[in-house]
């Protein structure tokens, strides 16, 4: 059973460009959350997708957008890249239960470098 997968593993872009990162959730999971982790810091919540809609959002500008597909996979798009967008982008999937809290599984991340 594959866990959360992300692609690509590494990416180098220049300022002003746009980037798309991809995530496939763990089998049986329908909720996908995205996080940005700067070097030496904890992950910062970007947004969460469920039933193809953005359900919650952190303090990130509109340059950060996402999408969830019918098969529950998700994309994170970042427009007009800034040097400060350089980070590890983590995807996590979960299947929230009703009476029991499910654990959230993280993928290995995509390392984005903006030059």
């Amino acid at each position, binding site marked *: 059973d594959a866990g959360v997968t992300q692609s690509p593993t590494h990416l180098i872009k220049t300022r002003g460009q746009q980037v798309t990162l991809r995530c496939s959730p763990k089998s049986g999971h329908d909720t996908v959350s995205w996080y940005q982790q700067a070097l030496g810091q904890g992950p910062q919540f970007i947004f969460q997708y469920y039933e193809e809609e953005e359900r919650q959002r952190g303090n990130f500008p509109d340059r950060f957008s996402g999408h969830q597909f019918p098969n529950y996979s998700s994309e994170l798009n970042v427009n007009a890249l800034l040097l400060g967008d350089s980070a590890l982008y983590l995807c996590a999937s979960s299947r929230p239960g009703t009476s029991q809290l499910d654990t959230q599984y993280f993928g*290995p991340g995509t390392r984005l470098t903006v030059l």
Partner: protein
Amino acid sequence: GESVGLHLPTLSVQEGDNSIINCAYSNSASDYFIWYKQESGKGPQFIIDIRSNMDKRQGQRVTVLLNKTVKHLSLQIAATQPGDSAVYFCAENIGGKTSYDKVIFGPGTSLSVIP
């Protein structure tokens, strides 16, 4: 604003000793807390969680303690092993209908186990 922070950024322990990693949180409305372990080059891995209606929960070699009065969370690792070397994050879930609507991570503590 909302934040989760750690008292100690680094911790070195002798193999076989017990480790204690502390965490302070600021949002008294948080109802669910999670400890994650992150090894180099990997995404965070779930260790143990606790709901706000509990003050202690035990897992395999790990115990989480929650003190809501002083908004303090701790992770105890018994008989620390070299494989426990990693960065440990505490995190809290804020609001929402599910357990993962908005997870706020602390900055992390780096644990080094001395053989």
